[in-house]
């Protein structure tokens, strides 16, 4: 399939809808030649699969961090007409509202360095991590309904943050219209989700204490409250077992729906339902509940991170300026309005391993960021650099206001485990002065930095294509993992 790609410019590649039968629209890949050289053919084929779905809007997009996943590749965007198109649980994936938030501080490296181990230990002890981990918060059935209805607002109303946190979250930390019970939300999903609020999870999720290494755009960095050598905290996690179960439930339900509505699928993982159908709308309401759970999850942990800093630095978090820069989601389906062929259209944008990147002036971004655009938070692989980017007008015109989400895997998990040992990875990171705490050492092997693409090349591609621009990069000092 790769041989059918046509290079449009240094960072853009086009796959015409004639590339294979049944494609309704063409596909575009954002990335340098180097990115294309390493992109699996199977990932390109997965883009063509999505292009066959009803109501697809041109183009189906792959970002430079794209790699072969299940259904839609990780690092991809699929948009569908809100009337004639579909909503797909398969395209969104299991980790609904997996996302990243960045918390700034007014601390510098010299403040943190002598206390780094104590700080990382404090955060590790306060934020429950690991497979199947259970949180410190015990929720009644009614409280759980409130969490999935209100999202981060629930946390604020229950003294786990301040109102200003909400304005610095995508969707204000809460999507309206979330379902809370039967038939949209199953008992299984509620049972799986209820004990897990306030947990980091495992796998690629992490909490990092980082130092701002480089500023690329002084004026935008200033608006986001970032400067060189500043200490910041990045939190990467999602909707945990609740979101995983919502996805599981709707994969089963939509597998029935595709037969009912006679939708042809090239890959059964792309199960979907017409956007206006009861199955489609039920999924959207259930997905919003999982989105809200994830926003609340990150907010609750933010509160504990602040408490951890307070304990170590013996000051309140307000004095330490532990304010939220932003919270973005990178696994979601959103009802949005975008200009398509010169007119506004209502569409469902599926971002799977892709980040919203709205440009300046958009009504959906916080007032204090209106002049520059939405912050885009890019988590690198464990122990490597992360980035803060800013959304652009070009993203609005070209990618349904979307950009990349991270480094993207370059090596399979089993291959990483064969090649690396967790203890060696930990030693290598600690020899560079970084402090690593994890529930399991083995988990570090699978997330070895070299198992991922080079985040710099990924970010250079989206910057080069101008679908988001570099503002700052950060390097980790301390890592907490499941």
């Amino acid at each position, binding site marked *: 399939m790769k041989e059918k790609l046509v290079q449009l410019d240094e960072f853009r590649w086009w796959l015409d809808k004639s590339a294979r039968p049944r494609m309704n629209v063409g596909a575009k890949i954002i990335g340098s030649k180097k990115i294309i050289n390493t992109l699996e053919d199977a990932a390109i084929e997965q883009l063509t699969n999505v292009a066959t779905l009803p109501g697809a809007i041109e183009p189906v997009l792959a970002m430079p961090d794209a790699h072969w996943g299940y259904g839609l590749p990780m690092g991809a965007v699929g948009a569908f007409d809100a009337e004639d198109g579909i909503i797909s649980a398969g395209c969104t994936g299991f*980790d609904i509202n997996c996302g990243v938030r960045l918390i700034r501080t007014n601390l510098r490296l010299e403040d943190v360095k002598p206390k780094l181990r104590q700080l990382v230990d404090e955060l590790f002890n306060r934020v429950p991590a690991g497979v199947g981990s259970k949180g410190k918060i015990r929720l009644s059935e009614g409280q759980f309904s409130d969490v999935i209805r209100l999202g981060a607002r629930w946390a604020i109303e229950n003294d786990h943050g301040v109102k200003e946190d909400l304005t610095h979250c995508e969707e204000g930390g809460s999507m309206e219209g979330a379902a809370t019970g039967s038939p949209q939300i199953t008992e299984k999903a509620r049972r799986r989700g209820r004990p897990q609020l306030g947990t980091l999870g495992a*796998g690629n999720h992490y909490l990092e204490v980082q130092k701002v290494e480089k500023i690329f755009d002084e004026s935008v960095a200033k608006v986001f409250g970032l400067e060189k050598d500043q200490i910041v905290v990045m939190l990467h996690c999602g909707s945990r077992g609740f979101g995983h179960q919502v996805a599981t439930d709707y994969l089963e339900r939509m597998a029935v729906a595709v037969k009912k509505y006679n939708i042809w699928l090239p890959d059964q993982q792309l199960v979907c339902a017409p956007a206006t159908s009861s199955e489609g709308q039920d999924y959207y309401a259930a997905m919003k509940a999982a989105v809200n759970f994830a926003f609340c999850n990150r907010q609750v942990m933010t509160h504990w991170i602040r408490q951890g800093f307070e304990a170590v630095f013996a000051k309140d978090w307000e004095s330490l300026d532990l304010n939220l820069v932003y919270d973005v989601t990178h696994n979601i389906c959103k009802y949005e309005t975008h200009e398509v062929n010169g007119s506004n259209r209502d569409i469902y944008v599926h971002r799977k391993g892709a980040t919203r990147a709205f440009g300046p002036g958009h009504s959906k971004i916080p007032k204090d960021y209106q002049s520059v655009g939405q912050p885009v938070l890019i988590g690198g692989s464990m122990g490597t650099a992360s980035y803060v980017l800013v959304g652009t007008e070009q993203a609005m015109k070209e990618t349904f206001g979307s950009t990349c989400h991270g480094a993207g895997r370059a090596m399979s998990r089993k291959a990483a485990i064969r090649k690396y040992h967790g203890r060696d990875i930990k030693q290598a990171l600690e020899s560079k002065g970084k402090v690593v705490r994890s529930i399991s050492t083995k988990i570090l092997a699978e997330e070895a930095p070299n198992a991922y693409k080079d985040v710099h090349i990924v970010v250079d591609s989206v910057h080069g294509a101008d679908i988001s621009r570099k503002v700052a990069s950060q390097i980790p000092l301390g890592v907490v993992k499941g």
Partner: protein
Amino acid sequence: MDFEYFDEITSDQLFRAYGSSLPEVFRNAARAMFGVMYDLEEIVLDHEIEVCAVGIDEKHLLYDWLSNLLLEFEVEGVFFADFSITTIEETPKEGFQLIGIAKGSQKMPELRTQVKGVTLHRFSLERVNNRYIATVVVDV
């Protein structure tokens, strides 16, 4: 061979499980799934939980079985390592029903990763020459 892992998919884990009967392939697929997360040999089997599943056909029954095991693993905090199928029945109205036992321990082993869910990507259950082959990709 009970099951084997394949590297093909970069971000997720593909495995195939085998069995001479439906109960055997269901057991081996479950062992393969939990073997993605930790070494099964590390687990002392001192806990048992009954797990049920339903499906319109055998393939969907397998999907529901694996998904329900993940749910029980997280909710009950038991690290499963072996499984037995008590009954698999086909009913005229409701399709297939399964009752099984999942065995494991609440003592946490060293974890490699977390399985988030069972995908439908390449998901299949075939019968080839009296041997069942389950192909499964789990999201990790």
